[in-house]
């Protein structure tokens, strides 16, 4: 009986052949928590009798959700994380070093074929690397840090095949928004997704991360991009599905004619062709997050904004996904272009996406964001509306003061 990628990765970790539906206790290759989930993780770790994390080189804490601290309460939680990391001899990624998922990939805490557990719902991002990565809450993560293990139900897998190449000016974000719209926010609950087909094969690692990242917007346990075409700057071996693997559901799309996509308030699966929303006035444009804060995202925005000024009624916020992304965007001139166009640069981290600080919208305002969630209140104000789009769409919209198709600036 053939196996999916998830079944193969879990089998390798438990030492026997598993199939969907089986309960397993598996070793993990890495674990991390952010400053939203870390303090409760530390509290639970101590309460459950934890003394030492299972391997300090495989565990990390990242201060990214409210960094730098906006008030004394959060400052004290950050201190609690720093103290714990020092005590355990594990790495703490400081304010500004970057978003948890970006720094885990950049620093090779996760590699192809790994099982990684993160106390953040966007942990499936590492499916870009052909890893089995799941988001959990704080107590689960504390248990994993203590035992080096996780209990899992081996998931059934949904196979999504996308044939054809994306048109020029259409990006991985447009593709994944389209897929979230088709599968819906609960269409993959408890399940894994495999993304395969020509449309994914030519994608960069950054674009693959954008794809895998939004698996969680379909409710998936994990989302793994087929490794065909994957390029990394170290040697690696990959896991591919058997031809006779069993899938619970299959989707097949020809995406060669796909247009830029927009997700309208207030659910990520409320996805439409951009033409449905072109002309919608915006107040605020945001590029960043674990979904779309990487160099290629900032570069495409700079390509659109080069030598121009954003609309006078719009403010634009940029949060690079990591310090490394920021440095690259400084070296290649992208950051200068964006700031000259009128954008405001904030600390690498989650920034306004989680509604804690660094750019909360006002009542009645409309945001176009390169993030992955537009739930009511997501950015800190339930009386604002959030549209999601590609970084290219955010840049074109910032320029015109209304939701705008970026293709005319790119083709």
């Amino acid at each position, binding site marked *: 009986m053939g196996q999916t990628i998830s079944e193969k990765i879990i089998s390798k970790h438990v030492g026997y052949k598993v199939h969907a539906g089986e309960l397993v*206790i598996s070793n993990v290759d890495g674990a991390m928590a952010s400053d939203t989930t870390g303090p409760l993780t530390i509290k639970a770790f101590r309460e459950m009798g934890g003394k030492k994390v299972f391997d300090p080189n495989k565990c990390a804490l990242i201060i990214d959700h409210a960094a730098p601290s906006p008030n004394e309460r959060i400052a004290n939680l950050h201190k609690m994380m720093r103290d714990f990391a020092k005590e355990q001899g594990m790495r703490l990624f400081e304010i500004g070093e970057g978003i948890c998922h970006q720094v885990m990939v950049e620093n090779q805490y996760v590699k192809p074929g790994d099982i990684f557990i993160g106390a*953040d719902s966007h942990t499936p991002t590492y499916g870009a690397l052909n890893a089995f990565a799941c988001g*959990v809450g704080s*107590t689960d993560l504390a248990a994993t840090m203590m035992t080096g293990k996780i209990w899992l139900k081996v998931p059934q897998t949904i196979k999504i095949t996308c044939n054809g190449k994306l048109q020029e000016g259409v990006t991985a974000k447009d593709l994944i928004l389209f897929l979230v719209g088709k599968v819906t926010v609960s269409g993959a609950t408890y399940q894994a997704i495999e993304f395969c087909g020509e449309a994914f094969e030519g994608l960069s690692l950054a674009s693959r991360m954008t794809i895998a990242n939004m698996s969680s917007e379909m409710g998936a346990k994990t989302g793994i991009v087929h490794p065909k075409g994957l390029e990394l700057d170290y040697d690696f071996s990959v896991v591919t599905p058997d031809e006779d693997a069993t899938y619970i559901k299959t989707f097949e799309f020809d995406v060669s004619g796909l247009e830029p996509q927009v997700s309208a308030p207030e659910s990520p699966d409320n996805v439409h062709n951009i033409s449905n929303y072109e002309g919608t006035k915006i107040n605020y444009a945001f590029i960043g997050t674990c979904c779309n804060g990487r160099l290629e995202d900032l570069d495409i925005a700079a390509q659109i904004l080069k030598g121009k000024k954003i609309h006078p009624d719009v403010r634009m916020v940029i949060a690079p996904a990591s310090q490394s992304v920021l440095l690259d965007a400084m070296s290649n001139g992208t950051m200068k272009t964006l700031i000259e166009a009128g954008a405001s640069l904030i600390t690498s981290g989650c920034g306004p996406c*989680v509604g804690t600080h660094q750019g909360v919208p006002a009542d009645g305002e409309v945001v176009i964001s390169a993030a992955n969630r537009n739930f009511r209140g997501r950015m*800190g104000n339930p009386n604002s509306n959030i549209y999601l789009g590609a970084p290219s769409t955010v840049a074109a919209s910032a320029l015109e003061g209304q939701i705008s198709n970026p293709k005319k600036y790119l083709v």
Partner: protein
Amino acid sequence: MGKVQTTITAKAHVYGDHIDTDRIIPGKYTKTLDLSTLANHVLEDLDPNFNKEVQQGDILVAGINFGCGSSREQAPLALKQAGVSVVIARDFARIFFRNAINIGLPVLEIADHNIKKGAKLEIDLKSGSVKDLTANISYTATKLPDIMISILNEGGLVNYLKKNGNYSL
């Protein structure tokens, strides 16, 4: 059932589908270890009256995909701290489902329930039976995996690991 009360009779507060964790507890309130802060803001963007109306032991009832979105354990913690004794939904988002069990908040999946606001429910957690005393209808919840029952029996994952030191199937 050890540290979790096994029979509950209480009032249902009923909401719809896809209640995300931002609506259960907005991100701006999550960075705290003070559980009363969480309880004070629970569900405020969905129903500002919930916090005033909920009584200790009450039951939260929802449609599909309850708890979708972020991994914040503050969501089930906020509900539990506010007095909610059980959450019933047609189905749950997976991280919320695990988190609730891990902190000792029982969750029951009943795919076809038709429970209305204000209904009086009688729940037996051991058997998973739910009687809607107002509408006179009985339901049976989907059985939890054995390991979740063991975790819930201990009142949550902290106590489970304190007792066992490791996982076992």
